[in-house]
């Protein structure tokens, strides 16, 4: 796909390997190398994932029986809020763009670094400040509003809303700066010959994501500051007793948070495009359609927020408008699924652990997408809104989609990042637990939702017990699955086989440099002469 002389196609960067090129903690904390910043994000995000995951297990444990199982209702409400807020703002939103976007995007373009390396480091610090602010509520009274901070509850609750909100606000700043950095990088730092029609689909997905991050996040920032202003200064914006409008908050909040759903899932789709082509050893079917569909999803995502509000008291006309617009999301999503499957047609498919995760994504994301159509329908959603059906649906998309793709991407790029192979056997075993556990946990929740069990419930009717117990057992399987992923990673660091430059037979640029890469990515700037998936 591109030309390098024999001497330049090194398998081992030796002392110039980015991991050991400079030594000591200080060299990491002051680094402007996009690869090191990616690793620092990875350490932070995986830590938060562990914390958010523990809260998930605690929530499911409490729901093992009706009434009190382990904690009081107030504690449960805090667990639920921590789980949601940590997983959304500190794990799923930053995970793929900040870790893999940072690590592989510049290499895929043939660049030495992102466009603004210092700004990139600044983003990491801003993210960490925000994360620490938000996480400190764990020890400072907690917060019990749910991750959505709906008013007027969030104005009136005695828990520590301001700190969490300021944390989310600060992390939003980091998200905007990262998005900006990527957009400029994609436009200005492509290697010679790397035209826009030759950049990998992961890059296209991150590009579409970055645009949402830049345009939507400021609205969340303003909204969260308005909550803080209302709580601290008593300015009446959302609180009806001060003359405010509580439903206005929902409009503001979802104007960001619906596009944010696509900040979470578009990069995952980008990873899937990479995994499917590499492990099918076949060129992507419909490159242009997949790239454009990311932008179609990003564009439509801005005009569908009201589908979270069908029963909120918004006008009936608005409900219908948002319903028909929401239905449109189904089209580019279907295009992607069909294109990926068409890519596998007449391929040469190998089910290594990363590909298994991609297959898992396809399976679960299809269910997540199809149930999204149920919820987009007005007549159906009036019943399903705020029930467990919604909980099941978005977990199929966020966990079944994004987290499966993330784990697939982690196992796929791990050899590139650290120069060590993870055990494929452990990877496959972890997949069995995560995939099975996921379905055992969340499929019963569709049924609970149909039966009418509302979400965010600490206690439930006796007839919901058995399904809740199945769901809780499933959560243990997922937990075990991720422990096995962790073991596979630790084992790779200790005794992992040395990775070659291109262990999976990938065609994109990151597989043309050493594992781990040279601190400037390539010895000499590559020249690109063909598309990203030329398996001929």
């Amino acid at each position, binding site marked *: 796909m591109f030309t390098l002389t024999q001497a330049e196609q090194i398998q081992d960067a030796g002392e110039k390997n980015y991991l050991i090129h400079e030594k000591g903690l200080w060299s990491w904390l002051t680094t402007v190398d996009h690869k090191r910043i990616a690793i620092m994000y990875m350490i932070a995000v995986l830590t938060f994932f562990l914390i958010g995951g523990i809260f998930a297990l605690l929530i499911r444990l409490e729901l093992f029986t009706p009434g009190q199982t382990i904690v009081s209702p107030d504690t449960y409400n805090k667990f639920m809020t921590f789980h949601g807020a940590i997983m959304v703002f500190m794990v799923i939103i930053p995970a793929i763009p900040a870790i893999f976007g940072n690590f592989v995007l510049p290499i895929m373009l043939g660049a030495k670094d992102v466009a603004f390396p210092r700004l990139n480091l600044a983003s990491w610090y801003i993210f960490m400040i925000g994360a620490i602010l938000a996480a400190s509520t764990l020890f400072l009274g907690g917060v019990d509003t*749910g991750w959505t901070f709906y008013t007027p*509850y969030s104005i009136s609750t005695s828990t520590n809303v301001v700190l969490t909100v300021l944390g989310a606000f600060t992390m939003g700043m980091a998200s905007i700066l990262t998005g900006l950095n990527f957009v400029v990088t994609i436009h200005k730092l492509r290697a010679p010959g790397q035209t826009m029609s030759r950049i990998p689909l992961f890059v296209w997905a991150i590009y579409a994501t970055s645009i949402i991050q830049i345009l939507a996040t400021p609205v969340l920032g303003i909204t969260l500051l308005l909550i803080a202003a209302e709580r601290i200064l008593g300015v009446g914006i959302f609180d009806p007793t001060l003359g405010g409008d509580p439903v206005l908050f929902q409009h503001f909040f979802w104007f960001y948070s619906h596009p944010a759903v696509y900040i979470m899932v578009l990069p995952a789709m980008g990873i899937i495009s990479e995994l499917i082509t590499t492990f099918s050893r*076949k060129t992507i079917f419909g490159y242009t359609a997949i790239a454009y569909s990311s932008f179609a999803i990003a564009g439509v995502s801005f005009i569908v927020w009201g589908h979270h509000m069908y029963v909120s008291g918004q006008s009936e006309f608005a409900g219908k408008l948002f319903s028909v617009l929401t239905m449109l999301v189904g089209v580019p999503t279907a295009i992607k699924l069909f294109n990926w499957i068409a890519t596998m047609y007449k391929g040469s498919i190998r089910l290594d652990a990363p590909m298994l995760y991609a297959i898992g994504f396809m399976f679960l994301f299809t269910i997540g997408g199809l149930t999204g159509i149920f919820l987009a329908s007005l007549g159906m959603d009036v019943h399903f809104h705020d029930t467990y059906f919604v909980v099941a649906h978005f977990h199929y998309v966020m966990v079944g989609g994004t987290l499966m793709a993330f784990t697939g991407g982690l196992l796929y790029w791990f050899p590139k990042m650290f120069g060590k192979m993870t055990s494929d056997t452990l990877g496959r075993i972890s997949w069995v637990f995560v995939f099975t556990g996921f379905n055992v946990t969340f499929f019963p929740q569709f049924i609970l939702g149909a039966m009418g069990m509302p979400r965010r419930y600490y206690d439930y009717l006796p007839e919901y017990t058995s399904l809740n117990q199945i769901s809780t057992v499933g959560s243990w399987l997922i937990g075990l699955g991720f422990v096995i992923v962790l073991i596979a990673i630790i084992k790779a660091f200790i005794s992992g086989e040395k990775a070659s430059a291109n262990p999976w037979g990938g065609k994109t640029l990151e597989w043309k440099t050493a594992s781990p890469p040279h601190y400037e990515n390539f010895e000499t700037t590559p020249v690109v002469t063909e598309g990203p998936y030329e398996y001929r």
Partner: protein
Amino acid sequence: MFSLHFTVLANTFMPVQGSEIAVDVDYHYAFLVISSLIAFIILIGGMTLFIVKYKRQTENDKTAYISHNHFLEFLWSFIPFLIVMGVFYWGKVIYDKHRTFPEKAEEIHVIAQKWAWEFKYKNGVSIESAKGEVLHIPVGKPVRFIISSRDVLHSFFIPGFRNKQDAIPGRFTSMWIEAKQEGEYQVFCAEYCGTGHSNMPARIRAVAPEAYVAWLEEKKANTPVDPNAGNEMAMKGASLYKELGCSGCHTVASDAPKLSGPSWVGLFGSKREFADGSSVVGDENYIRESILNPMAKIVKGYAGIMPPYVGRVSDEEIDNIIEYIKTLK
């Protein structure tokens, strides 16, 4: 045979169907489940087939080079588009039924608070979920709920009727149901409201219309004599009309001379035309706004001279005044 399966599937896992609309919703649901299953089998079945059929044989496998196919791509964009538009339309038809309020409905006020429901009938009977009392509704007659909240957001959710509506402080929302047979139905709060969110259930019992009237009479007779509880909402509204000084500017008799404010006769449900040329239908929210913030909408032909009543009149008093205005035909 197919229709039988369809019907069976429609009811699977869904709560008892309380109304005709619930039956419609369940058919829609059954259609979605079946069509999703078909879509799932096409997508994931196809994928599984390819995984098995095109398994990697050697490390030097040659693969076909297929970059795109416009006809196929058009098909799998356009067919899903048609299907989702169909689903939208079906969902809209059901939603329209939910949102088209019958002319003559039994009206019951629903007041949510942390963490209980209060239901108020026009004759002054009040049902409190916290005391374990059961809300009664007549079978075969539409019931309109006028929903409000005393504190934070709640949501009035009756799974048996496949209907819910948020309760919002400082605003009225409404929904209607019509029970098709006698039975008991569960009510949940569906909008997160804090500690007792999962602990504010209520029960609705649908009974024959005669039994409903008898129950309401009996409840009223058993209501303890108390200066307020003995009065109907509209009667309280009538006394507030005098106490708050409304009578100085608004008439309540159709033959009375014009005063400085618009007459209340026929106000409810009529089209209100304003000085700025706009208009709305005089509903609960309009009256509420006109009491609290009279300058927001000035009726054509009148001067904006009414003082705002915000802080001088409680939500409950506004409810009563509205019920009183409704009686002035």
